[in-house]
């Protein structure tokens, strides 16, 4: 994408430090709206004897509960069901958004602005989501264990691990965000290349069609897998902070 594609950045109050990427804002909003509306309409008729959409929703909740239970006690885990569902659905929908199509607008100057893609192919968004998760683990660590226990955890099992524990927080943030970004960005780049190749000529179109379909299927698989991994790792990091050591 590089030089050819531009990002629709505006600066609030003409301040170069307050840049905001309108495409990102738009994509984040759309993704969140999809998640909310789907779940909202799935949960309209809630009955004691579940049917249809409620079954699917309860299956999802049970799935996340199992993910949480595999990493920590349910005593602490019960706080994170909503978080887990929100994360897995938000990341999943974001990953899926770039698969059926991508959209770019060309301005009079000849710049192309990408308006529709996977928001998770933006490192700022994946890293900030990862940072939010790590910050949340600290907040819940203090909340569920108390400040004293939380502070002591930095010196467990032996005191000289303290610097590594600090480094771990940052490396966790980076790996969590970059893993998601790398997977989705690679998917997007290859997709754009295949589409560009396919639209460059009729013959190329015939040859590029099959790989593109294969890549879309693979992209769907990768997107679902990465959403699951992101959710799983969130719970793993959370369990490190909230689980009581014995």
């Amino acid at each position, binding site marked *: 994408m590089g030089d050819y594609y531009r990002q629709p950045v505006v600066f609030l109050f003409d301040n170069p430090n307050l840049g905001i990427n309108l495409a990102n804002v738009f994509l984040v*909003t759309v993704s969140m709206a999809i998640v909310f509306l789907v779940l909202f309409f799935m949960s309209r008729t809630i009955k004691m004897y579940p049917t249809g959409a409620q079954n699917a929703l309860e299956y999802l909740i049970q799935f996340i509960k199992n993910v949480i239970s595999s990493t920590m006690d349910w005593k602490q885990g019960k706080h994170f069901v*909503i978080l887990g569902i929100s994360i897995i659905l938000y990341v999943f929908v974001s990953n899926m958004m770039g698969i059926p199509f991508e959209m770019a607008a060309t301005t009079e100057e000849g710049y192309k602005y990408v308006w529709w893609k996977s928001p998770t192919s933006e490192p700022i968004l994946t890293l900030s989501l990862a940072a939010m998760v790590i910050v949340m683990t600290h907040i819940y660590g203090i909340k569920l264990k108390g400040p004293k226990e939380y502070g002591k955890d930095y010196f467990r099992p032996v005191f000289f691990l303290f610097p590594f524990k600090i480094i771990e927080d940052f490396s966790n943030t980076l790996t969590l965000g970059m893993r998601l970004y790398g997977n989705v960005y690679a998917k997007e780049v290859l997709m754009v290349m295949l589409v560009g190749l396919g639209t460059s000529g009729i013959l190329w179109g015939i040859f590029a069609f099959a790989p593109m379909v294969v890549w879309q299927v693979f992209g769907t698989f990768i997107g679902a897998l990465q959403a699951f991994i992101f959710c799983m790792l969130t719970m793993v990091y959370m369990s490190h902070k909230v689980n009581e050591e014995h």
Partner: protein
Amino acid sequence: MDALFGTHLTWLDAVYQILGFLVLMWLLKRYALGPVMDMMEKREKHVADQISSAEKNREEAEKYLAEQREAIQTARNEAKEIVERTKKLSEQQASEIIASAKKDAERIKETAIAEINQEKEQAISALREQVSTLSVLVATKVIEKELNEQEQEKLIRETLKEVGEEL
């Protein structure tokens, strides 16, 4: 940094996303997942209640069953007792009846024998009387007609025949 984040580090996107995500979590909790999870919890409780009440009912039923079984056993025992008692009674009655019947029969037999004897006595006395009368009659006839031996014989026979007819 430019390679990763484009020409500008648009960190307000990150702020927007995080705020949006927190709002999304709140909305989901308030309008979608919260009610469903409440219902799941309620159902769990309902199922637990049902199970415990079923357990209670089962225990009660078992208790009733044991009671019923005991009652049936008692009734059976009583019935057995009654039957035995009745059997004993009936046997006793039967032997009594037989004994009285035997006694009756004995008595009747004795009466009959006595009657027969009496009749016999009567008959014998009647015959004696007849014989005396007859002998007188025969004697009279013999005396009346002095006949030969043949006629005498014939006469006796006739007389006896007469007497026999009378008898």
